[in-house]
Protein backbone atom coordinates (compact mmCIF):
# COMPACT_ATOMS: atom_id res chain seq x y z
CA UNK A 1 0.00 0.00 0.00
CA UNK A 2 2.65 2.59 0.94
CA UNK A 3 4.45 1.85 -2.33
CA UNK A 4 1.25 2.51 -4.25
CA UNK A 5 0.86 5.77 -2.40
CA UNK A 6 4.44 6.78 -3.14
CA UNK A 7 3.93 5.90 -6.79
CA UNK A 8 0.77 8.01 -6.94
CA UNK A 9 2.55 10.98 -5.38
CA UNK A 10 5.44 10.61 -7.80
CA UNK A 11 3.16 10.46 -10.80
CA UNK A 12 1.12 13.38 -9.56
CA UNK A 13 4.12 15.60 -8.99
CA UNK A 14 5.60 14.65 -12.35
CA UNK A 15 2.39 15.61 -14.10
CA UNK A 16 2.16 18.84 -12.14
CA UNK A 17 5.74 19.71 -13.03
CA UNK A 18 5.08 19.00 -16.70
CA UNK A 19 1.95 21.10 -16.73
CA UNK A 20 3.55 24.09 -15.03
CA UNK A 21 6.70 24.01 -17.11
CA UNK A 22 4.58 23.61 -20.22
CA UNK A 23 2.53 26.63 -19.32
CA UNK A 24 5.61 28.75 -18.73
CA UNK A 25 7.20 27.54 -21.93
CA UNK A 26 3.94 28.14 -23.78
CA UNK A 27 3.83 31.75 -22.69
CA UNK A 28 7.25 32.43 -24.03
CA UNK A 29 6.81 30.46 -27.25
CA UNK A 30 3.62 32.01 -28.54
CA UNK A 31 3.61 35.80 -28.49
CA UNK A 32 0.43 37.61 -27.57
CA UNK A 33 -1.38 38.82 -30.69
CA UNK A 34 -0.41 42.27 -31.88
CA UNK A 35 -3.79 43.72 -32.75
CA UNK A 36 -3.85 46.99 -34.58
CA UNK A 37 -7.07 48.88 -34.03
CA UNK A 38 -7.28 51.29 -36.93
CA UNK A 39 -10.15 53.39 -35.61
CA UNK A 40 -10.04 53.16 -31.83
CA UNK A 41 -13.10 54.03 -29.82
CA UNK A 42 -15.51 53.75 -32.73
CA UNK A 43 -16.69 50.21 -32.14
CA UNK A 44 -20.35 49.26 -31.77
CA UNK A 45 -19.71 47.92 -28.27
CA UNK A 46 -16.98 48.05 -25.58
CA UNK A 47 -13.86 45.96 -26.25
CA UNK A 48 -14.61 43.39 -23.54
CA UNK A 49 -18.05 42.75 -24.89
CA UNK A 50 -16.78 42.52 -28.44
CA UNK A 51 -14.08 40.03 -27.49
CA UNK A 52 -16.55 37.78 -25.77
CA UNK A 53 -19.60 38.14 -27.95
CA UNK A 54 -18.64 39.21 -31.44
CA UNK A 55 -19.37 35.77 -32.83
CA UNK A 56 -22.88 35.76 -31.43
CA UNK A 57 -23.51 39.27 -32.70
CA UNK A 58 -22.30 38.32 -36.14
CA UNK A 59 -24.36 35.17 -36.18
CA UNK A 60 -27.46 37.02 -35.08
CA UNK A 61 -26.95 39.63 -37.79
CA UNK A 62 -26.17 37.03 -40.38
CA UNK A 63 -29.43 35.20 -39.78
CA UNK A 64 -31.51 38.37 -39.60
CA UNK A 65 -30.01 39.73 -42.80
CA UNK A 66 -29.80 36.52 -44.75
CA UNK A 67 -33.12 35.00 -43.86
CA UNK A 68 -35.34 37.95 -42.94
CA UNK A 69 -33.80 40.55 -45.21
CA UNK A 70 -33.03 43.02 -42.43
CA UNK A 71 -30.40 45.46 -43.67
CA UNK A 72 -28.33 48.15 -42.03
CA UNK A 73 -27.75 46.39 -38.73
CA UNK A 74 -24.84 47.90 -36.85
CA UNK A 75 -23.13 44.57 -36.25
CA UNK A 76 -22.81 43.58 -39.89
CA UNK A 77 -19.70 41.75 -41.01
CA UNK A 78 -19.09 44.25 -43.77
CA UNK A 79 -19.29 46.99 -41.15
CA UNK A 80 -16.53 45.26 -39.17
CA UNK A 81 -14.36 44.94 -42.26
CA UNK A 82 -14.77 48.55 -43.32
CA UNK A 83 -13.56 49.75 -39.94
CA UNK A 84 -11.02 47.09 -39.02
CA UNK A 85 -9.28 46.41 -42.32
CA UNK A 86 -5.59 47.13 -42.05
CA UNK A 87 -4.56 50.48 -43.48
CA UNK A 88 -1.55 48.78 -45.03
CA UNK A 89 -3.17 45.82 -46.72
CA UNK A 90 -6.81 46.89 -46.81
CA UNK A 91 -7.82 43.54 -45.37
CA UNK A 92 -8.70 41.93 -42.06
CA UNK A 93 -6.68 38.91 -43.12
CA UNK A 94 -3.31 38.25 -44.67
CA UNK A 95 -0.91 38.38 -41.78
CA UNK A 96 -0.99 37.84 -38.06
CA UNK A 97 -1.08 41.60 -37.58
CA UNK A 98 -4.36 41.94 -39.40
CA UNK A 99 -7.42 42.26 -37.26
CA UNK A 100 -9.33 39.01 -37.54
CA UNK A 101 -6.37 36.79 -38.24
CA UNK A 102 -4.27 38.06 -35.32
CA UNK A 103 -6.57 36.84 -32.58
CA UNK A 104 -7.85 33.81 -34.39
CA UNK A 105 -4.34 32.58 -35.10
CA UNK A 106 -3.46 33.09 -31.46
CA UNK A 107 -6.57 31.35 -30.18
CA UNK A 108 -6.35 28.68 -32.88
CA UNK A 109 -9.99 29.17 -33.83
CA UNK A 110 -10.71 28.48 -37.47
CA UNK A 111 -12.30 31.31 -39.40
CA UNK A 112 -15.14 30.12 -41.59
CA UNK A 113 -16.33 33.52 -42.81
CA UNK A 114 -13.75 34.07 -45.50
CA UNK A 115 -14.48 31.04 -47.63
CA UNK A 116 -17.34 33.13 -48.93
CA UNK A 117 -16.99 36.70 -47.63
CA UNK A 118 -14.59 39.28 -49.01
CA UNK A 119 -12.04 40.26 -46.35
CA UNK A 120 -10.93 43.48 -48.05
CA UNK A 121 -12.55 46.82 -47.31
CA UNK A 122 -14.17 48.70 -50.17
CA UNK A 123 -13.38 45.89 -52.52
CA UNK A 124 -14.91 45.96 -55.97
CA UNK A 125 -14.50 42.82 -58.01
CA UNK A 126 -13.65 43.73 -61.53
CA UNK A 127 -13.86 41.87 -64.76
CA UNK A 128 -16.78 40.29 -66.44
CA UNK A 129 -17.48 36.68 -66.97
CA UNK A 130 -14.53 34.71 -68.30
CA UNK A 131 -14.72 32.90 -71.60
CA UNK A 132 -16.61 29.97 -70.16
CA UNK A 133 -19.54 32.21 -69.34
CA UNK A 134 -19.89 34.00 -72.64
CA UNK A 135 -22.30 32.68 -75.16
CA UNK A 136 -20.72 29.49 -76.32
CA UNK A 137 -23.90 28.03 -77.66
CA UNK A 138 -23.39 24.55 -78.88
CA UNK A 139 -19.78 24.55 -77.76
CA UNK A 140 -18.47 21.33 -76.33
CA UNK A 141 -16.18 21.33 -73.36
Amino acid sequence: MPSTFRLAVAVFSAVAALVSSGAVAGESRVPKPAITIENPGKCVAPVDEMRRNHMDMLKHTRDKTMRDGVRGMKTSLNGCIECHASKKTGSVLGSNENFCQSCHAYAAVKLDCWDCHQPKAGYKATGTAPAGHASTAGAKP
Partner: protein
Amino acid sequence: MKIEQYTPAEERLFYVLLALGGLVSAIGLAAAYYMEHFGHAVTGMTNQVFWGLPHVFGIFLIVAASGVLNVASIGSVFGKKVYKPRAPLSGLLAIIMLAAGLAIIMLDLGRADRVLIAATHVNLTSVFGWNMILYPVFFGLVGLYLWTLMDRRMNAYYKAAGFSAFIWRLVMTTGTGSIFGFVVARQAYQSAILAPMFIIMSFAWGLAVFLLVQRSMYSWNNMVLHPAVRQRLKNLLGTFIAAVLYFVIVYHLTNLYYAKQVAFEHFILVSGGIYPVLFWGGYVLLGTLLPLFLLYHPAIWKKSGAVSVAAALTIVGGLCQLYVFIIGGQAFPLEMFPGMEVTSSFFDGAIGTYVPSLPEILLSVGGLGIGFTLTVVGVRVLRFLPQDDLAMLTDAGYLHD
Protein backbone atom coordinates in the same frame (compact mmCIF):
# COMPACT_ATOMS: atom_id res chain seq x y z
CA MET B 1 -19.43 -21.48 -23.30
CA LYS B 2 -16.06 -22.52 -24.61
CA ILE B 3 -14.52 -20.09 -27.01
CA GLU B 4 -12.35 -21.67 -29.62
CA GLN B 5 -8.90 -20.14 -29.94
CA TYR B 6 -7.76 -18.85 -33.30
CA THR B 7 -4.95 -20.76 -34.93
CA PRO B 8 -1.79 -18.83 -35.85
CA ALA B 9 -2.78 -19.03 -39.52
CA GLU B 10 -6.15 -17.51 -38.70
CA GLU B 11 -4.47 -14.80 -36.67
CA ARG B 12 -2.20 -13.97 -39.58
CA LEU B 13 -5.09 -13.89 -42.03
CA PHE B 14 -7.03 -11.58 -39.74
CA TYR B 15 -4.22 -9.05 -39.55
CA VAL B 16 -3.55 -9.24 -43.29
CA LEU B 17 -7.20 -8.57 -44.03
CA LEU B 18 -7.30 -5.83 -41.43
CA ALA B 19 -4.25 -4.15 -42.95
CA LEU B 20 -5.66 -4.47 -46.44
CA GLY B 21 -9.03 -3.01 -45.48
CA GLY B 22 -7.37 -0.29 -43.43
CA LEU B 23 -5.16 0.69 -46.35
CA VAL B 24 -8.08 0.92 -48.79
CA SER B 25 -10.07 2.92 -46.25
CA ALA B 26 -7.14 5.26 -45.61
CA ILE B 27 -6.67 5.88 -49.33
CA GLY B 28 -10.38 6.64 -49.59
CA LEU B 29 -10.17 9.13 -46.73
CA ALA B 30 -7.14 10.76 -48.31
CA ALA B 31 -9.03 11.07 -51.60
CA ALA B 32 -11.94 12.68 -49.76
CA TYR B 33 -9.57 15.16 -48.13
CA TYR B 34 -8.07 15.96 -51.51
CA MET B 35 -11.52 16.62 -52.96
CA GLU B 36 -12.44 18.72 -49.96
CA HIS B 37 -9.26 20.75 -50.21
CA PHE B 38 -9.26 21.50 -53.91
CA GLY B 39 -13.02 21.44 -54.33
CA HIS B 40 -15.04 19.32 -56.67
CA ALA B 41 -13.05 20.77 -59.57
CA VAL B 42 -10.83 17.71 -59.18
CA THR B 43 -13.78 15.41 -59.76
CA GLY B 44 -15.58 14.54 -62.97
CA MET B 45 -18.76 16.01 -61.52
CA THR B 46 -20.16 19.13 -63.12
CA ASN B 47 -23.15 21.41 -62.82
CA GLN B 48 -25.13 18.99 -64.96
CA VAL B 49 -23.96 15.67 -63.55
CA PHE B 50 -23.41 16.68 -59.95
CA TRP B 51 -24.02 13.31 -58.33
CA GLY B 52 -21.35 10.89 -59.45
CA LEU B 53 -19.70 7.64 -58.61
CA PRO B 54 -19.62 8.25 -54.82
CA HIS B 55 -23.40 8.50 -54.90
CA VAL B 56 -23.70 5.27 -56.86
CA PHE B 57 -21.60 3.40 -54.31
CA GLY B 58 -23.02 5.23 -51.31
CA ILE B 59 -26.63 4.65 -52.28
CA PHE B 60 -25.86 1.03 -53.19
CA LEU B 61 -24.48 0.40 -49.70
CA ILE B 62 -27.34 2.21 -47.98
CA VAL B 63 -29.96 0.28 -49.93
CA ALA B 64 -28.16 -3.03 -49.50
CA ALA B 65 -27.75 -2.30 -45.77
CA SER B 66 -31.46 -2.33 -45.34
CA GLY B 67 -31.77 -5.45 -47.50
CA VAL B 68 -29.15 -7.44 -45.68
CA LEU B 69 -31.26 -7.21 -42.56
CA ASN B 70 -33.88 -9.19 -44.41
CA VAL B 71 -32.13 -12.43 -43.55
CA ALA B 72 -32.66 -11.70 -39.87
CA SER B 73 -36.22 -10.57 -40.43
CA ILE B 74 -37.16 -13.81 -42.16
CA GLY B 75 -36.03 -15.60 -39.01
CA SER B 76 -37.41 -13.29 -36.34
CA VAL B 77 -40.48 -11.85 -38.01
CA PHE B 78 -41.56 -14.69 -40.23
CA GLY B 79 -40.35 -17.47 -37.95
CA LYS B 80 -38.21 -19.39 -40.44
CA LYS B 81 -35.81 -21.33 -38.26
CA VAL B 82 -33.02 -21.74 -40.78
CA TYR B 83 -32.55 -17.96 -40.86
CA LYS B 84 -32.28 -17.55 -37.11
CA PRO B 85 -28.61 -18.51 -36.76
CA ARG B 86 -27.92 -15.96 -39.48
CA ALA B 87 -29.67 -13.08 -37.73
CA PRO B 88 -26.66 -11.71 -35.80
CA LEU B 89 -24.44 -11.56 -38.89
CA SER B 90 -27.29 -10.03 -40.86
CA GLY B 91 -27.79 -7.30 -38.26
CA LEU B 92 -24.10 -6.58 -38.00
CA LEU B 93 -23.74 -6.24 -41.77
CA ALA B 94 -26.77 -3.93 -41.87
CA ILE B 95 -25.16 -1.52 -39.41
CA ILE B 96 -21.78 -1.68 -41.11
CA MET B 97 -23.04 -1.16 -44.64
CA LEU B 98 -25.22 1.76 -43.65
CA ALA B 99 -22.25 3.35 -41.93
CA ALA B 100 -20.00 2.79 -44.94
CA GLY B 101 -22.58 4.12 -47.40
CA LEU B 102 -23.22 7.22 -45.32
CA ALA B 103 -19.49 7.76 -44.99
CA ILE B 104 -19.11 7.96 -48.77
CA ILE B 105 -22.06 10.30 -49.23
CA MET B 106 -20.99 12.57 -46.38
CA LEU B 107 -17.36 12.73 -47.42
CA ASP B 108 -18.48 13.81 -50.87
CA LEU B 109 -20.44 16.80 -49.54
CA GLY B 110 -19.25 20.18 -50.75
CA ARG B 111 -18.90 21.17 -47.11
CA ALA B 112 -18.22 17.87 -45.39
CA ASP B 113 -16.89 19.87 -42.43
CA ARG B 114 -20.45 21.04 -41.83
CA VAL B 115 -22.03 17.62 -41.79
CA LEU B 116 -23.28 18.20 -38.23
CA ILE B 117 -25.53 20.94 -39.56
CA ALA B 118 -27.49 18.16 -41.22
CA ALA B 119 -28.36 16.97 -37.72
CA THR B 120 -28.90 20.39 -36.11
CA HIS B 121 -30.99 21.94 -38.88
CA VAL B 122 -33.48 19.42 -40.21
CA ASN B 123 -35.96 20.50 -42.86
CA LEU B 124 -38.90 18.15 -42.52
CA THR B 125 -40.21 18.68 -46.03
CA SER B 126 -37.00 17.20 -47.40
CA VAL B 127 -36.67 13.49 -48.07
CA PHE B 128 -33.00 13.94 -47.15
CA GLY B 129 -34.23 15.55 -43.95
CA TRP B 130 -36.32 12.47 -43.17
CA ASN B 131 -33.30 10.33 -43.79
CA MET B 132 -31.43 12.28 -41.12
CA ILE B 133 -33.97 10.72 -38.75
CA LEU B 134 -34.42 7.37 -40.50
CA TYR B 135 -30.73 6.40 -40.47
CA PRO B 136 -29.87 7.00 -36.80
CA VAL B 137 -33.06 5.25 -35.68
CA PHE B 138 -32.15 2.32 -37.92
CA PHE B 139 -28.75 2.09 -36.23
CA GLY B 140 -30.49 2.18 -32.86
CA LEU B 141 -33.13 -0.41 -33.65
CA VAL B 142 -30.72 -2.87 -35.25
CA GLY B 143 -28.33 -2.37 -32.34
CA LEU B 144 -31.16 -3.11 -29.93
CA TYR B 145 -32.13 -6.14 -31.98
CA LEU B 146 -28.58 -7.48 -31.84
CA TRP B 147 -28.59 -6.98 -28.09
CA THR B 148 -31.81 -9.00 -27.71
CA LEU B 149 -30.26 -11.75 -29.80
CA MET B 150 -26.97 -11.91 -27.91
CA ASP B 151 -28.00 -11.33 -24.33
CA ARG B 152 -29.96 -14.17 -22.73
CA ARG B 153 -31.76 -11.77 -20.39
CA MET B 154 -33.01 -9.84 -23.42
CA ASN B 155 -33.96 -12.90 -25.49
CA ALA B 156 -37.62 -12.47 -24.64
CA TYR B 157 -37.73 -9.22 -26.59
CA TYR B 158 -36.03 -10.33 -29.78
CA LYS B 159 -39.26 -10.72 -31.72
CA ALA B 160 -40.43 -7.24 -30.84
CA ALA B 161 -37.04 -5.75 -31.64
CA GLY B 162 -36.77 -7.71 -34.88
CA PHE B 163 -40.23 -6.61 -35.90
CA SER B 164 -39.49 -2.92 -35.24
CA ALA B 165 -36.24 -3.14 -37.16
CA PHE B 166 -38.04 -4.83 -40.04
CA ILE B 167 -40.73 -2.17 -40.26
CA TRP B 168 -38.11 0.55 -39.94
CA ARG B 169 -35.98 -0.82 -42.73
CA LEU B 170 -38.99 -0.76 -45.05
CA VAL B 171 -39.63 2.85 -44.11
CA MET B 172 -35.96 3.69 -44.53
CA THR B 173 -35.69 2.26 -48.03
CA THR B 174 -38.94 3.95 -48.95
CA GLY B 175 -37.09 7.10 -47.93
CA THR B 176 -34.10 6.26 -50.10
CA GLY B 177 -36.26 5.52 -53.14
CA SER B 178 -38.24 8.69 -52.52
CA ILE B 179 -35.09 10.80 -52.73
CA PHE B 180 -35.62 10.29 -56.44
CA GLY B 181 -39.32 9.48 -56.48
CA PHE B 182 -40.29 12.93 -55.21
CA VAL B 183 -38.19 14.83 -57.74
CA VAL B 184 -40.66 16.39 -60.16
CA ALA B 185 -38.09 18.11 -62.35
CA ARG B 186 -36.48 15.14 -64.04
CA GLN B 187 -37.80 12.54 -66.40
CA ALA B 188 -35.85 9.68 -64.90
CA TYR B 189 -37.41 10.12 -61.49
CA GLN B 190 -40.80 11.47 -60.24
CA SER B 191 -42.38 8.05 -59.91
CA ALA B 192 -44.04 6.43 -56.92
CA ILE B 193 -42.85 3.04 -58.13
CA LEU B 194 -39.31 3.96 -57.11
CA ALA B 195 -40.01 3.42 -53.40
CA PRO B 196 -41.16 -0.23 -53.69
CA MET B 197 -38.57 -0.78 -56.42
CA PHE B 198 -35.79 0.31 -54.08
CA ILE B 199 -37.16 -2.00 -51.40
CA ILE B 200 -37.08 -4.99 -53.71
CA MET B 201 -33.63 -3.98 -54.97
CA SER B 202 -32.50 -3.88 -51.36
CA PHE B 203 -33.74 -7.45 -50.89
CA ALA B 204 -31.68 -8.72 -53.79
CA TRP B 205 -28.51 -6.71 -53.16
CA GLY B 206 -28.58 -7.28 -49.41
CA LEU B 207 -28.99 -11.02 -49.74
CA ALA B 208 -26.24 -11.13 -52.36
CA VAL B 209 -23.85 -9.35 -50.00
CA PHE B 210 -24.88 -11.64 -47.16
CA LEU B 211 -24.26 -14.77 -49.20
CA LEU B 212 -20.80 -13.59 -50.20
CA VAL B 213 -19.82 -12.72 -46.63
CA GLN B 214 -21.19 -16.01 -45.35
CA ARG B 215 -19.35 -17.92 -48.05
CA SER B 216 -16.04 -16.21 -47.18
CA MET B 217 -16.49 -16.90 -43.49
CA TYR B 218 -17.32 -20.52 -44.18
CA SER B 219 -14.29 -21.09 -46.35
CA TRP B 220 -11.99 -19.49 -43.77
CA ASN B 221 -13.42 -21.86 -41.22
CA ASN B 222 -13.29 -24.85 -43.57
CA MET B 223 -17.02 -25.21 -43.36
CA VAL B 224 -19.54 -26.02 -46.06
CA LEU B 225 -23.06 -24.73 -46.13
CA HIS B 226 -25.59 -27.52 -45.84
CA PRO B 227 -27.04 -28.17 -49.33
CA ALA B 228 -30.59 -27.83 -48.06
CA VAL B 229 -29.87 -24.40 -46.64
CA ARG B 230 -27.94 -23.46 -49.74
CA GLN B 231 -30.90 -24.35 -51.91
CA ARG B 232 -33.26 -22.26 -49.80
CA LEU B 233 -30.99 -19.24 -49.95
CA LYS B 234 -30.30 -19.47 -53.67
CA ASN B 235 -33.99 -19.77 -54.46
CA LEU B 236 -34.62 -16.70 -52.36
CA LEU B 237 -31.93 -14.78 -54.22
CA GLY B 238 -33.37 -15.90 -57.56
CA THR B 239 -36.83 -14.75 -56.53
CA PHE B 240 -35.52 -11.34 -55.52
CA ILE B 241 -33.55 -10.91 -58.75
CA ALA B 242 -36.63 -11.76 -60.76
CA ALA B 243 -38.74 -9.38 -58.69
CA VAL B 244 -36.30 -6.52 -59.37
CA LEU B 245 -36.50 -7.30 -63.06
CA TYR B 246 -40.26 -7.12 -62.86
CA PHE B 247 -40.11 -3.65 -61.32
CA VAL B 248 -37.57 -2.48 -63.88
CA ILE B 249 -39.79 -3.68 -66.71
CA VAL B 250 -42.86 -1.95 -65.29
CA TYR B 251 -40.87 1.26 -64.73
CA HIS B 252 -39.65 1.38 -68.33
CA LEU B 253 -42.96 0.25 -69.84
CA THR B 254 -44.78 3.03 -68.03
CA ASN B 255 -42.30 5.53 -69.38
CA LEU B 256 -42.52 4.15 -72.89
CA TYR B 257 -46.27 4.55 -72.84
CA TYR B 258 -46.06 8.28 -72.04
CA ALA B 259 -45.20 10.23 -75.18
CA LYS B 260 -43.39 12.86 -73.08
CA GLN B 261 -41.03 10.20 -71.71
CA VAL B 262 -40.17 8.44 -74.95
CA ALA B 263 -37.12 10.53 -75.76
CA PHE B 264 -35.69 9.78 -72.32
CA GLU B 265 -36.33 6.06 -72.67
CA HIS B 266 -34.71 6.06 -76.08
CA PHE B 267 -31.68 7.71 -74.51
CA ILE B 268 -31.39 5.24 -71.63
CA LEU B 269 -32.23 2.11 -73.60
CA VAL B 270 -30.81 2.78 -77.07
CA SER B 271 -28.91 5.92 -77.94
CA GLY B 272 -27.27 7.08 -74.72
CA GLY B 273 -23.83 5.53 -75.22
CA ILE B 274 -22.55 4.13 -71.93
CA TYR B 275 -26.00 3.99 -70.33
CA PRO B 276 -27.65 1.47 -72.69
CA VAL B 277 -24.45 -0.59 -72.55
CA LEU B 278 -24.54 -0.67 -68.76
CA PHE B 279 -28.27 -1.26 -68.74
CA TRP B 280 -28.41 -4.16 -71.17
CA GLY B 281 -24.95 -5.60 -70.69
CA GLY B 282 -24.40 -4.78 -67.02
CA TYR B 283 -27.79 -4.92 -65.43
CA VAL B 284 -29.88 -7.17 -67.69
CA LEU B 285 -27.31 -9.67 -68.91
CA LEU B 286 -24.62 -9.84 -66.22
CA GLY B 287 -26.73 -8.78 -63.26
CA THR B 288 -30.00 -10.54 -63.95
CA LEU B 289 -30.11 -13.21 -66.67
CA LEU B 290 -26.75 -14.79 -65.93
CA PRO B 291 -27.33 -15.10 -62.16
CA LEU B 292 -30.82 -16.44 -62.77
CA PHE B 293 -29.31 -19.06 -65.09
CA LEU B 294 -26.64 -19.98 -62.54
CA LEU B 295 -29.19 -20.23 -59.75
CA TYR B 296 -31.83 -22.23 -61.57
CA HIS B 297 -29.92 -24.50 -63.92
CA PRO B 298 -30.48 -27.89 -62.26
CA ALA B 299 -26.85 -28.99 -62.58
CA ILE B 300 -24.95 -25.74 -62.33
CA TRP B 301 -26.31 -24.33 -59.08
CA LYS B 302 -25.05 -27.37 -57.21
CA LYS B 303 -21.48 -26.74 -58.29
CA SER B 304 -19.24 -25.11 -55.75
CA GLY B 305 -19.11 -21.35 -56.18
CA ALA B 306 -22.11 -21.06 -58.49
CA VAL B 307 -24.27 -19.32 -55.91
CA SER B 308 -21.43 -17.01 -54.90
CA VAL B 309 -20.77 -16.04 -58.51
CA ALA B 310 -24.47 -15.36 -58.95
CA ALA B 311 -24.42 -13.19 -55.82
CA ALA B 312 -21.37 -11.29 -57.02
CA LEU B 313 -23.00 -10.74 -60.40
CA THR B 314 -26.12 -9.45 -58.68
CA ILE B 315 -23.98 -6.83 -56.96
CA VAL B 316 -22.28 -5.86 -60.23
CA GLY B 317 -25.67 -5.64 -61.89
CA GLY B 318 -26.99 -3.49 -59.05
CA LEU B 319 -24.12 -1.04 -59.36
CA CYS B 320 -24.68 -0.83 -63.14
CA GLN B 321 -28.37 -0.27 -62.58
CA LEU B 322 -27.73 2.55 -60.10
CA TYR B 323 -25.15 4.12 -62.41
CA VAL B 324 -27.67 4.21 -65.26
CA PHE B 325 -30.39 5.45 -62.93
CA ILE B 326 -28.45 8.15 -61.07
CA ILE B 327 -25.96 9.36 -63.65
CA GLY B 328 -27.98 8.64 -66.79
CA GLY B 329 -30.92 10.39 -65.15
CA GLN B 330 -28.87 13.57 -64.75
CA ALA B 331 -27.12 13.34 -68.11
CA PHE B 332 -30.40 13.55 -69.98
CA PRO B 333 -31.13 17.28 -70.36
CA LEU B 334 -34.01 18.92 -68.54
CA GLU B 335 -36.89 19.54 -70.86
CA MET B 336 -37.92 23.14 -70.27
CA PHE B 337 -39.28 23.90 -73.72
CA PRO B 338 -41.14 20.92 -75.17
CA GLY B 339 -40.95 20.70 -78.93
CA MET B 340 -37.99 23.07 -79.09
CA GLU B 341 -34.32 22.63 -79.86
CA VAL B 342 -32.39 24.27 -77.08
CA THR B 343 -28.82 25.59 -76.95
CA SER B 344 -26.99 27.68 -74.38
CA SER B 345 -23.64 28.34 -72.76
CA PHE B 346 -24.80 26.17 -69.85
CA PHE B 347 -25.24 23.07 -72.01
CA ASP B 348 -29.02 23.22 -71.98
CA GLY B 349 -30.40 20.65 -74.36
CA ALA B 350 -27.07 18.84 -74.50
CA ILE B 351 -26.39 15.39 -73.12
CA GLY B 352 -24.24 15.70 -70.01
CA THR B 353 -20.95 13.88 -69.98
CA TYR B 354 -19.41 12.36 -66.90
CA VAL B 355 -16.13 10.56 -66.44
CA PRO B 356 -15.29 9.76 -62.82
CA SER B 357 -11.90 11.05 -61.75
CA LEU B 358 -9.40 9.06 -59.68
CA PRO B 359 -10.24 10.71 -56.32
CA GLU B 360 -13.91 9.84 -56.78
CA ILE B 361 -13.08 6.26 -57.60
CA LEU B 362 -10.76 6.02 -54.60
CA LEU B 363 -13.38 7.54 -52.31
CA SER B 364 -16.00 5.10 -53.56
CA VAL B 365 -13.74 2.09 -53.18
CA GLY B 366 -12.58 3.52 -49.84
CA GLY B 367 -16.17 3.30 -48.65
CA LEU B 368 -16.23 -0.37 -49.53
CA GLY B 369 -12.92 -0.63 -47.65
CA ILE B 370 -14.48 0.90 -44.55
CA GLY B 371 -17.29 -1.64 -44.74
CA PHE B 372 -14.84 -4.48 -45.28
CA THR B 373 -12.62 -3.45 -42.36
CA LEU B 374 -15.54 -3.10 -39.99
CA THR B 375 -16.85 -6.50 -41.07
CA VAL B 376 -13.48 -8.20 -40.54
CA VAL B 377 -13.25 -6.74 -37.04
CA GLY B 378 -16.92 -7.30 -36.29
CA VAL B 379 -17.08 -10.96 -37.16
CA ARG B 380 -13.85 -11.67 -35.30
CA VAL B 381 -14.80 -9.87 -32.13
CA LEU B 382 -18.42 -10.94 -32.08
CA ARG B 383 -18.03 -14.42 -33.57
CA PHE B 384 -21.19 -14.18 -35.61
CA LEU B 385 -20.49 -17.25 -37.74
CA PRO B 386 -23.86 -18.70 -38.74
CA GLN B 387 -23.96 -22.35 -37.68
CA ASP B 388 -26.68 -24.78 -38.62
CA ASP B 389 -27.29 -27.87 -36.59
CA LEU B 390 -28.88 -30.92 -38.10
CA ALA B 391 -31.53 -31.32 -35.47
CA MET B 392 -32.74 -27.81 -36.11
CA LEU B 393 -32.80 -28.38 -39.86
CA THR B 394 -34.75 -31.62 -39.47
CA ASP B 395 -37.11 -29.88 -37.10
CA ALA B 396 -37.64 -27.10 -39.62
CA GLY B 397 -38.50 -29.64 -42.25
CA TYR B 398 -35.47 -29.01 -44.46
CA LEU B 399 -34.23 -32.59 -44.42
CA HIS B 400 -36.66 -35.01 -45.87
CA ASP B 401 -34.95 -38.38 -45.83
